[in-house]
């Protein structure tokens, strides 16, 4: 992206991104054509689809359901397992020349330990890991690892002990006290936080008079959740010092700018790519124009600018 009117490069959690636009996990297929620079214009980094220790078939029944300004999904982390990923997909991601993060499923301590030890065999071929702590905790009560500060810290500590490279931890907005979870994960050595994942919702099928999804609940994403996600980004950025990557409902450059003003160093885009493949380029161009027009020389200068006290004003309330 040489034509941008401002330099959008930024260092986030151990990765140097050319732009702050990251493709969220679960969106981009391993189609070599789609990993070409031409199809990734404006993209700073990519998160792979979820990788679990063993292959997963994913959920049965309806998997996607459109909602007002968004969608629900219940895919069930269908993937070919970490061995399948290394054999079939890592070569595709590696050839692209773009930074990527392997999104890791964590259901049990054993799973994440083994998964990371297998990933370590590939050495430098894997630039970074994004740990998904939204999965149910198979070792404990079945609640997601990311729900409580204690279990989230445990998850982060295990991943940190097994993975020395860049480690991003993707939080879940279902946590009742997200800032506390964020602090706990930060204290265990995560390099960045992704805030956050889909929002738990459901849909009812009026024709069949039963829930649409076999698992009843599903993850809500898309522009509908943006104000909710922005609020969590604001709260988490107020609680931690490590970089935060905003994620949730970003569908235009203004959303990205809002999250960065709230303190995010980058944003992830997911569902809105389903509506527009060209979104990363459009967001990057919009952000660059915004910086240039405001005469802010670097993207870092925009990070958290919206939190600054105005002259003579009072500090913003943190809650």
């Amino acid at each position: 992206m040489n034509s941008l009117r401002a330099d959008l490069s930024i260092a986030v959690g151990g990765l140097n991104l050319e732009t702050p636009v990251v493709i969220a996990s679960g969106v981009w297929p391993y189609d070599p054509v789609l990993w070409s620079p031409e199809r990734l214009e404006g993209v700073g980094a990519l998160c792979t689809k979820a990788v679990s220790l063993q292959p997963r078939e994913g959920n049965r029944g309806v998997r996607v359901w459109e909602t007002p300004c968004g969608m629900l999904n219940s895919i069930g982390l269908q993937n070919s397992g970490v061995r399948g990923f290394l054999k079939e997909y890592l070569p595709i991601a590696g050839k692209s020349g773009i930074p990527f993060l392997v999104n890791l499923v964590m259901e049990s301590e054993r799973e994440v330990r083994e998964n990371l030890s297998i990933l370590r065999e590939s050495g430098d071929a894997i630039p970074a890991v994004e740990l998904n702590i939204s999965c149910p905790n198979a070792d404990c009560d079945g609640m997601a690892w990311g729900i409580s500060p204690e279990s989230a810290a445990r998850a982060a500590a295990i991943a940190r002990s097994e993975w020395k490279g860049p480690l991003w931890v993707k939080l879940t907005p279902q946590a009742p006290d997200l800032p506390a979870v964020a602090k706990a994960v930060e204290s265990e050595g995560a390099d960045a936080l992704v805030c956050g994942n889909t929002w738990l919702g459901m849909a009812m099928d009026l024709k069949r008079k039963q829930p649409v999804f076999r698992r009843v609940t599903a993850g809500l994403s898309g522009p509908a959740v943006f104000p909710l996600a922005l609020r969590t980004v604001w709260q988490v950025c107020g609680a931690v010092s490590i970089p935060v990557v905003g994620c949730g409902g970003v569908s235009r450059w203004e959303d990205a700018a809002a999250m960065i003003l709230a303190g995010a160093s980058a944003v992830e885009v997911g569902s809105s790519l389903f509506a527009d493949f060209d979104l990363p380029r459009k967001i990057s161009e919009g952000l660059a124009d915004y910086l240039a027009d405001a005469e802010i020389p670097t993207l870092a200068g925009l990070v958290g600018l919206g939190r600054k006290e105005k002259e003579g004003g009072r500090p913003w309330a943190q809650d």
Partner: protein
Amino acid sequence: MSCGGSPRDYGAAVLGHRPLGDGSGLLAVRCEEIASCAEPGQFVLVRPGTGNDPFLGRPLAVADAAGDVFKVVYRIVGRGTALLASKRQGDPVTVRGPVGRGFFSARGEKALPRKVILAGGSVGAAPLLFAARRLGMSRIEKTVMGVAGKGWEGFAEWLKEAFPGVDLYSDDGTAGKKGTVLSGLPGSLPPDTELWACGPQGMLRAVAEKYPLDGHRIMAALESRMACGMGGCMGCVIPTVSGNRRVCVDGPVFTAEEVMWNELSSC
């Protein structure tokens, strides 16, 4: 124009809109990139509006393509298709495509059969119309179409015009003969003949079950709810003998013997 590869998004314009009655219609869209590359069985995702609501594109099979124009057939089933039905000549529309493996590319190196029977249910007729044009009339053994009945008269008239000599059935006999697509199919598939089918899942399953030993000669274009149309979201998978496969990029055309019909959820 280089074809192949993953689908792209295009800003296009509605060139013509022909209502077919009863909430269905034929939309002609000017988009050279899709029209020049699409093959029968492939589809496009048409975004009904310009904003975030409705959020996703509607998957619609290409019903014809020539020059820089392609056509799709819709029937109103919800808010998105109702918006499509309101499109007029000149209206801008965003389209993603062409998506998927069509009837020709799905067969790989396998040669075309001497004869093809076309079997379509309701708007499943659309990709078969395109297939018939590309196959040439001499290769079409027979065309059988089915519609629900009352409320489909206008659509049935269009089917008769689009497929001269079509064997037409409706559940209640209001259009064509009383019966279903299956009523018009032969007891066994003649040698060197394939059956190309598109329609509701129940119809496709019934067709597959009618010829249990000839699944390899039945090519079925499936429908599924989907979000991305590029193989990313895994929203549209169906169970097959080789595991869950994506309707959008691994299909939508599968041989009947690949699909595990008993495990299909009617989504």
